[in-house]
């Protein structure tokens, strides 16, 4: 029985490999035949860039032209944070004492302040240069992970305050929608004069919310399921 299952596994592998490479070849022919689109959309993006309040085109697309995508993006992240939170709460995190001389803590002492500074810079520069909420959030999450590896308790996820922090990004977006709606009666229309500051307001809360969610995802795998 052993050899026949090995043989059938071998033939199955060959079949799958040939099928997938046939699909890849088809895709390649399609790419070679078909020239890329005429990039008309880029002119439209740059033409209206001054109305969006930011000069970095990617941030403009993310938070003004297609703000609805990012609005749901925060919902996706909050959904995973909600799904993963119970795994952290099931385990009573032991009260570790701060072991001063552990190497990880030494590294953390150097890198955490730097990355927080860098995250702040990335968040602020997001409106003009490459950068923005997601990049700053991932840097902050990196600091939190480093501190957690050094056994420093940063966020206690059992309190309602931390749950509020997690849903901060989405809440900020909804508050902005309601405020904007009361003036312009349209959905997610950021009025031109205050668009820049509204985007920064949303990005500020989103940074903390997304970094807390990313840290929660790491923490649940690292500390949960004991």
């Amino acid at each position, binding site marked *: 029985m052993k050899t026949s299952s090995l043989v059938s596994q071998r033939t199955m592998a060959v079949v799958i490999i040939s099928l997938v490479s046939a699909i890849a070849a088809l895709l390649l022919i399609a790419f070679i035949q078909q020239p890329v689109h005429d990039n008309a959309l880029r002119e439209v993006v740059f033409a209206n860039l001054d109305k969006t309040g930011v000069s970095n085109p990617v941030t403009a697309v993310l938070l003004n032209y297609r703000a609805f995508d990012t609005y749901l993006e925060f919902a996706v992240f909050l959904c995973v944070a909600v799904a993963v939170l119970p795994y952290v709460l099931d385990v009573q995190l032991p009260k570790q004492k701060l072991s001063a001389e552990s190497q990880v803590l030494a590294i953390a002492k150097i890198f955490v302040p730097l990355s927080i500074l860098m995250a702040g810079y990335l968040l602020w520069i997001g409106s003009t240069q490459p950068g*923005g909420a997601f990049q700053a959030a991932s840097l902050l999450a990196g600091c939190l992970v480093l501190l957690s590896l050094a056994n420093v308790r940063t966020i206690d996820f059992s309190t309602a305050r931390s749950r509020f922090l997690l849903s901060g990004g989405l809440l900020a977006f909804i508050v902005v929608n309601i405020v904007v709606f009361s003036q312009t009666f349209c959905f997610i229309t950021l009025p031109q004069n205050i668009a820049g500051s509204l985007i920064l307001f949303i990005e500020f809360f989103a940074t903390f919310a997304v970094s807390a969610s990313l840290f929660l995802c790491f923490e649940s795998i690292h500390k949960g399921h004991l």
Partner: protein
Amino acid sequence: MAIDLWIDVILCLSVLFVASSIFLVKNTFSAIVLFICLGLVVMFCWIRLNAIDVAIAEAAIGSGLTGAMLIAAWRKLAFNESGDQPDEQKEKSE
């Protein structure tokens, strides 16, 4: 041939090499490490393709945090897998 086309060719070959070795390598831990390297090499591709925002996000979330999660998960999963358990290495080292 222009020099930068050679850089791109080398980048693409290294991406394909690292990606194929993720599935060919024996134990899971080296697969995870290779995945983190793949994340970083792909980050260089994004920089070559003038996509700086994506490069930052790829390095930080794509390979950084996902890699940290994978290693944390591997530490938890590895103790029962038949193949490459850390306690096996411990026995060898004793």
